[in-house]
């Protein structure tokens, strides 16, 4: 009997080997889940960890769960994750730089402390009597039958309620993601009109017709001679740094040139030269 217990409290070397190898993989996967920059990578490494866990379930004699793990988690849930990641944007790589002051240290501290505590707890729980699942599974002739009998007898209420929960979850997901269309869809014509109306289709007139020092702040003139604000860049318009080119200012300009020429007395000279 003691021998049997002792035997039950030990595992085969094969399982041990498997544990150590896959366990490392699982831990690595978990770590990379936490540390990967891109959500996709995290998802994939998490999937890996889950598969490993599935193997462990099997190793622990939970065959049903092992399969379910693979099907539900790795199959369904992780796919869902990936979908969402796609929705949000695969390339979206969020920086691991911490924004909250001291958050990372706190987290690390708490984590390590917690882990140590758990391990210590397990350690001094001195769990050595492992009587395997052999009898339990054999009772109903197999693991799955055993589970089924338990689910549908002992845990039937919980099971039903879980079902209700699933339905609710589905509906909730639909409700949350569903977007109500408020107005009827636009026809193609309306769209095109929208695109064209109110905008100026031909290119804007160029500024700087009357260049003084830099032409950017002087509006170009429309064919009818009125200055067009549009030709000046937005910022200058907002700053109100547009020079007006109304007629009188043009006249002033002319007068200015006139006076300068007279002072230089250039043009009559030319005439004389011409004569």
């Amino acid at each position, binding site marked *: 009997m003691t021998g049997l217990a002792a035997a039950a409290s030990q*595992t085969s070397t094969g399982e041990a080997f498997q544990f150590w190898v896959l366990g490392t993989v699982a831990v690595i996967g978990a770590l990379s889940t936490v540390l990967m920059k891109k959500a996709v990578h995290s998802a994939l490494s998490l999937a890996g960890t889950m598969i490993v866990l599935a193997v462990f379930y099997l190793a622990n004699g939970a065959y049903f769960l092992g399969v379910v793990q693979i099907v539900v988690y790795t199959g369904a849930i992780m796919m869902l994750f990936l979908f969402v990641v796609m929705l949000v944007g695969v390339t979206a790589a969020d920086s691991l730089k911490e924004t909250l002051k001291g958050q990372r240290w706190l987290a690390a501290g708490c984590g390590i402390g917690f882990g140590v505590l758990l391990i210590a707890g397990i350690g001094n729980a001195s769990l050595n009597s492992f009587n395997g699942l052999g009898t339990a599974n054999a009772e109903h002739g197999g693991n799955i039958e055993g589970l089924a009998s338990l689910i549908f007898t002992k845990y039937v209420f*919980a099971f039903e309620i879980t079902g209700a929960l699933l339905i609710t*979850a589905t509906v909730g997901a639909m409700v949350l993601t569903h977007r109500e269309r408020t107005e009827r869809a636009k026809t193609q014509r309306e769209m095109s009109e929208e695109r064209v109306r109110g905008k100026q289709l031909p290119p804007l007139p160029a500024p700087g017709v009357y260049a003084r020092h830099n032409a950017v702040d002087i509006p170009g003139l429309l064919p009818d001679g009125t200055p067009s604000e549009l030709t000046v860049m937005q910022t200058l318009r907002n700053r109100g740094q547009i020079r007006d080119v109304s007629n009188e200012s043009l006249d002033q300009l002319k007068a200015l040139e006139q006076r300068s020429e007279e002072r230089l007395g250039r043009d009559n000279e030319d005439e004389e030269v011409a004569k």
Partner: protein
Amino acid sequence: MNPVNYLYLAALLFTIGAAGVLIRRNAIVVFMCVELMLNACNLAFVTFSRMHGNLDGQIIAFFTMVVAAAEVVVGLAIIVSVFRSRHSASVDDASLMKL
């Protein structure tokens, strides 16, 4: 080897997941970490059921999976709608719980 190691592993995974929840800002990744923690628990349950030699532990793990599935569905839906409203999936954007 003593199967207790499974428990140690579970503890380790759980802790890593928790740390991830605390460290990461991307809501999706946070969710993944949560899943990780759940799985760690499942592993522990399974190991326990093996330890005690009855299937209740596995049942619990089973239920956990189902609930986890439901949670993920709803949670991701929420994330999606949040992402729609404000174009980011970061849990730190706008500390909403502050007055």
